[in-house]
């Protein structure tokens, strides 16, 4: 519970209108895309870094926790107030401060919506590649906190590859600057990289200087139909091995196709697996690469390969692709959504391994995702109210993680650890490394007020519903 005294102090910082403890507001800031609910004690809407700094300073002094939140589209509970505290929404900090066309950089506030920012820079012939599937709602601040990826990561990398410098409010309230606004910079430790992907546990990003690149002149989108998942997975590995660099290489399995059939019932019905492949660049090279992709897919067993010609078809295809994750609930009421990554040559082993785990345990494991960079979104579908099935699902997660790690992979490519993966952290990270990470956390946040209960498993977290 937040004391009246603390509430009044918060009001003094941001004004009465920008902080709330009404039941209505608490409910609205109690969830994220994990569809779990934890009521915070208050919600606050600061306008700038200075206000964030004063809020955090107060929290550190008085000992209540702060949980930063962008759009609440995270999949690992990063913005959930698992043990109460104040949710700090960046919804008001949404200005694009500067797009520097000479140096190809941009400075933005954390609440800027990724897709809208991309529209802004693309209008100038520039490109900000990171494109998490939730890009139409997700914020740059949230993307930085989770180091979001997306389909384009296969060619362009993830959020961390585009962050040059940050303005961060530390858990003790100081406003710091990390990194540079230059392309290079090696002075001191790389605090920028430490912050990116720290899931709001080491500080709150209040500003970011991002790297932009020229917008690719042309894009060709191809859709390849495969009889089964192993043929499609083989095609992925073959494309990489053939030294082709697609800008997108997305795999969709038959369970996932079933959920989005309505987008194109004629063509999607009964398909074993799909690959969405995009190549971009100059028109001449795009043409050559598209032909190469075509050849590799055919050799791997594709029954049909279509090249999308009009914009609307491409848009519809991506809309379908973006809808898979939420649409999976048509299969079962609950899902465990994990985003494992393996070396790309091991994609086939991962896919067939997951298939047999599902079969053995009598579970649907729907897989789709950014296969081009080895990142597969595996969704173990179950019914929360069926205890036996829920238990089998949780065993399957562990087994899938073991499989992933045995193939030389990682248990999370772009969603983060948050609360959902905290208990598995030590499956991947050694005890010495975890201890070092915990010391880092303590060094930044001695009182543990910033986004508690995330990354490192915290037994005190109690789920409300």
């Amino acid at each position, binding site marked *: 519970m937040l004391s009246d005294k603390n509430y009044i102090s918060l009001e003094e910082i941001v004004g009465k209108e920008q902080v709330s403890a009404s039941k209505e507001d608490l*409910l*609205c*800031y*109690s*969830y994220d895309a994990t*569809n779990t609910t934890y009521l915070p004690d208050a919600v606050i809407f600061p306008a700038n870094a200075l206000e964030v700094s004063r809020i955090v300073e107060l929290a550190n002094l008085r000992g209540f926790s702060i949980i930063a939140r962008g759009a609440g589209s995270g999949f690992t509970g990063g913005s959930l107030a698992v043990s109460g505290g104040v949710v700090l929404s960046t919804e008001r900090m949404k200005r694009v401060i500067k797009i520097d066309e000479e140096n190809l950089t941009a400075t933005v506030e954390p609440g800027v919506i990724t897709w809208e920012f991309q529209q802004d820079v693309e209008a100038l012939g520039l490109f900000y590649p990171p494109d998490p599937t939730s890009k*139409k*709602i997700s914020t740059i601040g949230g993307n930085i906190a989770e180091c979001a990826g997306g389909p384009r990561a296969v060619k362009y990398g993830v959020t961390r590859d585009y962050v040059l410098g940050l303005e961060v409010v530390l858990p003790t309230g100081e406003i710091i600057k990390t990194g540079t606004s230059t392309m290079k910079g090696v002075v001191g430790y790389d605090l920028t990289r430490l912050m990116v992907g720290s899931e709001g546990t080491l500080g709150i990003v209040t500003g970011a200087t991002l790297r932009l690149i020229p917008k690719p002149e042309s894009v060709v989108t191809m859709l390849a139909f495969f009889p089964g998942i192993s043929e499609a997975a083989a095609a992925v590995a073959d494309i990489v091995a053939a030294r082709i660099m697609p800008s997108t290489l997305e795999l969709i399995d038959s369970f996932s196709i079933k959920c989005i059939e309505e987008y194109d019932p004629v063509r999607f019905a009964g398909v074993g697996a799909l690959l969405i492949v995009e190549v971009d660049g100059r028109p001449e090279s795009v043409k050559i690469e598209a032909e190469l992709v075509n050849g590799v897919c055919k050799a791997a067993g594709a029954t049909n390969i279509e090249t999308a010609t009009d914009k609307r078809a491409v848009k519809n295809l991506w809309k379908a692709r973006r809808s898979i994750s939420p649409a999976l609930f048509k299969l079962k009421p609950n899902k465990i959504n994990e985003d494992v990554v393996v070396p790309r040559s091991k994609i086939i082993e991962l896919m067939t391994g997951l298939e047999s785990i599902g079969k053995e345990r009598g579970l649907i494991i729907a897989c789709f995702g950014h296969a081009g960079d080895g990142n597969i979104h595996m969704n173990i579908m179950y019914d929360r109210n069926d205890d036996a099935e829920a238990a089998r699902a949780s065993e399957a997660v562990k087994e899938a993680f073991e499989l992933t790690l045995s193939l030389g992979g990682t248990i999370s490519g772009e969603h983060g650890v948050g609360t959902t993966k905290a208990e598995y952290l030590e499956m991947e990270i050694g005890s010495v490394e975890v201890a070092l990470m915990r010391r880092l956390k303590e060094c930044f946040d001695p009182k543990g007020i910033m986004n508690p209960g995330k990354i490192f498993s915290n037994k005190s977290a109690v789920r409300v519903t």
Partner: protein
Amino acid sequence: MKDLKSFLSEIDKCVKCGTCRSICPTTRVLGRESACARGKLTLIRAYIEGELEMSDDYTRHVKECAMCGGCRDVCPAGVKTTDVYLAARADLVKVNGLSFLERMVFKNLDSTRLMPSVLRLGARFKGLLFKAASPAEAGTASAIETDTGLISRFSLPLVGGGRLMPTVAKRFFLDLKEVRRLGKRPKKASSNTSETASVKVAFFAGCGVNYLMPHVGTASLKCIERTGAAVSVPKGQVCCGMPAFYTGDVETAERLARKNIEVFEEYGYDFVATSCATCSHGLKTVFKKLFENDDEMRDRAEAFSAKVRDITELLARDLKPVKTVEGISPTAPESGGKEAVKQISVTYHDPCHLNRNQGIKAEPRALLEDAEGVDFKNMKFACSCCGLGGGLSMTNYDLSIAITKRKADGAIASGADVIATACPGCIVQLRDAMQRYGVDKKVVHVVELL
């Protein structure tokens, strides 16, 4: 209409992915989770479960919505958000009743005498509260004739300061001599003039056309007549009831629907046409819903609804313009001494009730593209909501007009001189926004350009 509680399973389909945030016009303005569907559904669920009372905040959040249906359209889980909101609004009315003004208005919407008298009276004393907008203020600097409207002198309840209000027409559409003539009930099918015509269209005016924009009504009639179809304007028709329905006053909506169905049943028609997107949506899709539990009325509503067409749909799909049938080509600019056809650059705003609720998007554009003297170009944000709907312009004008800012931006970016749309409600709102945001563009109904 179904009880709010029965929507619990619909609400539970929401998986909290947040996709609704991407399209919601109120979320864009307010920047709060309570504005988007994910938040609203959470609140409505908590209210149903008894976790939340019908507090002022709850009521405000339920009403903070233009009912554009964007969230419903983008929801990957397929939650019928607007149905849930409507049930929540109806529940608000059931518990709290209507406001005094809402009661006054809605209870009299079916009177063919009282409403017009009140509006006429209002028109006489309007000068006390409003001043006439200059042509520049109303964005009517050139060619097309539009009424300029009124600007409120003070901040008025339900109106707000500096708001451009539409002028109440000197003569209402349904009172016009030429319109009354079309209201004659067919005596017997055989002795009617329309017997010779292949297609019979019954025209539904709606309040916007009747009280504010009779010229849109007469332009619509001309467009229909030009195709060779026979038009009637059934006498005794009343408001479509959608303002009441969207406020949650289902009882009034039912009463008005029943009355309209009865009136139209006396006329023979192949189509019922209207020039208001909200009316056509209501007549076509809501009437049936209103009589879900009344088999007899539902059948009659379904028979009626099956014939309803929006004017743009009717003209682009169902009726063929006579001029092309007869091969009369438009006067070419270079032929003869006639003045060259002046090209006006026109863009189009999609009314949500037409685009989202009826899927009519291509038809008005096709009409504009074919229209003589019109240089059509699409605008950015064409299908984003104008902000008027769902009673929002009455209950929260500041939010409503803030939403319209995006339309003003889109209109500027389009470079067009004229914004055409297919809904009197949108026209009122867009004109107000153009005045408020200083954009010199005219706003007209598509039929005015045909």
